[in-house]
């Protein structure tokens, strides 16, 4: 206290310069703060516009029209990216604003085919942004498939499909259990020869699961309990997609894929659809639950 007295006497001499200096200081600091905070708040724009809405990995805590909780809970570390065997998960860039570093899928390029079996991304998530409440692929609610371009659908035209589903250069991979139980292979390495195109139904992970359940169950009914254990008490899941006949007057068999309540929105149908651009797509604004309610 004693020491402060002479300093106080000196102050008036410095006062003007000092005041100006501290005013400049304050102004510059304010501009820096406003600039940085302003820049970070630009991240709001894509969120408000809805352009940051994307197909998210299984278990993402979001509703079809609100991803706020998911963005908030995600630590943007990418551990989900690292465990995915089909490398379906990517991290969003700056143009997603607050969604930067948040995982998403581009279904057409590489969908989630659940070939990890155990929902590895969910298990890898350290923050519960991909919720552990999820036990089986069939519990997933990523979106809901829709036949967006019925006229383009090969089955609806009564056409078959022969060759590589997405051409020779398509890098996407899927697990074909009959080829390799453990490792996914390029779709390009697995050509088809179909009388009537049913790729969206044939490759649907949920439909594949149902078929497995049926196979195992018919082997030995007494073993059903064991099978259910293996399948995770979710055997069989509800149907996700099926081909239903279309009426035709020219004798050609025409079918139409119909999406059903078991659809989880994984996007495999969109990925495998051989026409450009895909006849069937995954909608983000719906899922199996919101349809029911």
């Amino acid at each position, binding site marked *: 206290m004693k*020491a402060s007295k002479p300093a106080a006497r000196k102050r008036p001499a410095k006062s003007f310069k000092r005041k100006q200096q501290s005013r400049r*200081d*304050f102004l*510059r*600091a304010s501009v*820096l*703060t406003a600039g*940085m*905070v302003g*820049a*970070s*708040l*630009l*991240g*709001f724009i894509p*969120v408000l516009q809805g352009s940051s809405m994307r197909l998210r990995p299984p278990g993402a805590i979001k509703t079809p029209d609100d991803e*706020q*909780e998911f*963005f*908030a*809970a*995600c*630590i*943007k*570390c*990418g*551990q989900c*990216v*690292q*465990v995915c065997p089909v490398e379906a998960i*990517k*991290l969003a*860039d*700056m*143009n997603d*604003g*607050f969604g*930067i*570093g948040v995982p998403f899928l581009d279904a057409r390029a590489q969908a989630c085919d659940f070939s990890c079996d155990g929902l590895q991304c969910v298990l*890898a998530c*350290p*923050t*519960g942004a991909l919720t552990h409440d999820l036990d089986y692929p069939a519990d997933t609610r990523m979106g809901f498939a829709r036949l967006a371009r019925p006229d383009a659908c090969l089955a609806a035209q009564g056409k078959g499909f022969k060759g590589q589903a997405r051409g020779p250069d398509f890098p996407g991979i899927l697990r074909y259990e009959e080829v390799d139980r453990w490792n996914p292979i390029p779709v390009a390495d697995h050509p088809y020869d179909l009388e009537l195109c049913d790729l969206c139904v044939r490759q649907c992970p949920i439909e594949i699961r149902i078929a497995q359940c049926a196979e195992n169950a018919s082997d030995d009914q007494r073993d059903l309990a064991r099978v259910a254990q293996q399948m995770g008490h979710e055997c069989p899941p509800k149907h996700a997609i099926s081909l239903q006949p279309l009426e035709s007057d020219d004798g050609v068999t025409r079918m139409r894929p119909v999406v059903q309540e078991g659809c989880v929105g994984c996007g495999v149908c969109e990925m495998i659809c051989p026409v450009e651009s895909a006849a069937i797509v995954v909608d983000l604004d719906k899922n199996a639950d919101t349809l029911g309610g």
Partner: protein
Amino acid sequence: MRYIRDSLKQVFGFRVPRPAKEQQSPEVKAIYERKKGELTKEELEKVRREHKGTFLNKWQKRRWATLVFVNFLFVASYYFDVQLVEGSLSGARVIGFHMADLNSALQIALAYKHIVLNLVIGMVSVFVFWMLLGGRTFCSWVCPYHLLSEWAEYLHFWLVKKGLVKDHPFNRKVRGVFYVVFALLALVTGYTVFETVSPTGILSRALIYGPGLALIWVGLLLLFEVVYSRRAWCRYVCPIGVTYGMVGVFSPVRVKYNAEACHHEGDCRKVCLVPHVLDLTIRGGAVEVNQDVASDCTRCGMCVDVCPTDSLTYEIKGLSKMLK
């Protein structure tokens, strides 16, 4: 207590006043008294010349190597699928063990308003890890942005020397303001707003998962530091540094100052990212003969390298004594 108080003050940008004569120990007063009139320019030049022979930027080399190695571990773990360090700097599993960056976890806790057990485990392990290793050690030994901004700083110095640019320091209190503002923004908006501009997160992800548009932002930050304000992000903005500055308060790994041979010429303060922590090297600035540098110090070792009289050294409290 004094160390904790002064450290926290500096972390939030407040000035720690020079100690009054009454606060100084008689030993350190005697040293200052003895040095009066003894420190000549020739004397200083002599020790500087002598020091040049042994001056090899030893700690800077070790630090850069560590920084590159740690970030390489992240990258390699993903590319070669060796699963040593999965994830990125914001959150990772180290040999299966959860680690979560304290600041990222804090932003999540505020935005999401829940916190899951795995995240708590990750936070505790990171807290203990950096508490043992020095807190802001994270900044200079691990953060990839630190390395880039160190290089940008050399460019800045060169341009200053040419007279092309000038350093514009900001009031350091602005860092405390940023810390509070980003915390409030997370709480109010429900989004981890800071992550949108965090060059640490952006760079770590870019290294591991591939580059993106966000690198433009990092480039702009570096440009700002080169042409306008030296090391601006680390000095005035980054809340990660503030978080680890607080963690470091409890750390045994510190830089120790010994007043005995010090020439008070200030070479250390010139190279320091946070020169206010070295105010104790100014003549009359120390309270004790041996005094620890406060926790806002990033333990980068630049001052240890540059000090011509070895008055600044690394120490591990407790351990160093035992080793002697």
